[in-house]
């Protein structure tokens, strides 16, 4: 189990941030992500594997311009 945007969610251990976002229907390209309050750079989405109980927040970003 992890928390995604404050809600508990089934978690496959070893899943990357990218996989978690995609499985929740979120577009990683448009997400601003924090893991336990720390900003996660997009280049780490495919590398970082949140531990069970982690709090992941994925905020939607506007396009800007």
């Amino acid at each position, binding site marked *: 189990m992890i928390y995604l945007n404050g809600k508990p969610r089934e978690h496959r251990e070893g899943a990357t941030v990218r996989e978690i976002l995609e499985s929740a229907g979120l577009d990683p390209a448009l997400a601003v992500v*924090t893991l336990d309050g720390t900003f996660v750079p997009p280049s780490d989405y495919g590398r970082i594997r949140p531990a069970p109980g982690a709090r992941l927040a994925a905020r939607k970003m506007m396009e800007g311009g």
Partner: protein
Amino acid sequence: MEKVIKVLHVDAGTSFYRVERFPVGPFWGPVDLGLHLTGREAGRHGVLNFGTGLLAGSIFPGSNRLIFTGHSPCWGGFYVSAMGGAGLIFDDLGVNMVSLRGRAPSPSVLVLNREHGEEVQVELAPVDPGRIWASAPGGVYAMMDHVFGRWAREFKQTPRVLAVGPAAAATDFGAIASAPYQDGRTTHADCWAGRGGFGSKLFREHNICAVIYGGTCLDDDFRDRAVADEWFRQRYEKKLAAKDFEATTKYRFDPKFGTGGTFGVNYSTLGGRLLAFNYRSALWDEPARTALNKRLVTDHYLKQFNEETIAKKQQRTCGEPCSAVCKKLNGEFKKDYEPYQTMGPLCGIFDQRAAERLNRHADAAGFDAISAGGVLSWLMECLHEGLLKPGDLGVKSLPRWDAEKFDAVADSAHNAELGVGLIDSILESRGVLDLSLGARKLARRLSRSRGHEIGRRFVFLANARNGWMVPNQYWNAGALSPMAVMGKYYMYYGFDFVPPRELGRLNAGRMIQELIIDDLGICRFHRGWAEEMAPDIVQHIWGDSARFQEVIRATAGRVNSRNVAVFWESDRNIDFLLGFLKRKRDVEGDKNPELERWIKAFEADRRGAALDFWYEIRKGVSETLTTLY
């Protein structure tokens, strides 16, 4: 691949020039090196740097931005401004950056030409900018045409022109414009280094009103598509072109909304978050905002855009081959969200013809369009409220700002005409309108002489003693953050409530991401892959992604070490923030106890809570961008 970054130093005062080489490793691109040069010369010379990232000329789409850096006259601090596509031709000069210092003895055009392996030819040619700006088609457009017409034939391949307009002479927020030329004619797809007043800097500090550059120098750019496709396949199971096409959907055409570009997509999704009439809408209730949005934006302003621009596929690129084709046009008028927002709803304009008239006038004058619209909407409100009289501002009418009875066509046209008059007043310093030292100075002066009600209505970010910037047009707390560089997207501007300390940390994280793509000269509209892939690409090509990321983090820290953000000087900034917070709770139903706590704090002590909120953001920024040993 390039192992050094070549900087062409040009002294406009003496015409002396030389090339200096910086190793890749300690330096990576136009932002970190621009910051280094700005700091190195500080106290001796003001420098304006412009150049490309290391990926310019490569097969990566969007990699040809021309990045300007230096001390900004209007922001009062180090600034970074990016112009789409103009790096492609710059790359043919065979240098990575120009660092301009000194002041030409008379207003001049800087000509930079290079044929193959020859040296860059540097020429400073005196011109009469006033006469050129006054000729058809006017302002920056006349300057671009004049310079292109006079010098283009000296280039073996089509050159590119950077130009400033009269706003650069009269104010501290003049921008730099450049439109690609095709078959000897402008494409109308103007690109801008809009923010930061670098047009004013170019003209007032260096006496340069245009730069024309080009050449035929071939260098060793990364062009191996098969290799790049393989990198993309490994990460996305897609080739580069396919991933880029997917990542730039919104800028091209988003079937979900039936529109495209920043104007189309933003106005399709804003709803009650619309900002209108100098942010007075932030004080309204939600039904009033959504009703205005439906009647005047969705059913008119946006509808016109979709019918005229999107349905007719009037779109272009910034000059580089790009599948995003983000430049949405109606004939000669280019439509981006923020300029058509500040010189649109923010000024009480909800009709494309009216917005085109005002935006074109401001663009021809060469203003930073976002700041120009923010200043105009403030002045209009002062007129509307009777705080200033038309004669004070050199105009003859009052705005029509009655939202309930608003006539989308006639009232918009009236307000646009008033805006045009105000721009002319600014350029001619009519009445009280002296903006030579910026709008914050003007607000301060008018507040002292005519009453504080004037200054409290001007929404801007304050920096150092006189620095100012009209915020990005998103109704959220991020847009008012105390960051070292504001007015571009070095912050988090999502619409959710984020407790301020955390928002500061997010801002800092976002700043680092934006610096990565600015330093590589990549267009941020491609950030759907660029932010994620940039370190990999650097690793594959230069073999030292860790060093690159370290330099970026150090650059963010250094920029932040110059952070002299000043607490909001305008009460309307607090309205903006508090309106956003209340809307989150009351309209969107956000039950975050932190949100409730902040709203209560504002209700108990409005100014004190605002100061606390501001400082909390600042703390989050500092704790992220400062290294603790």
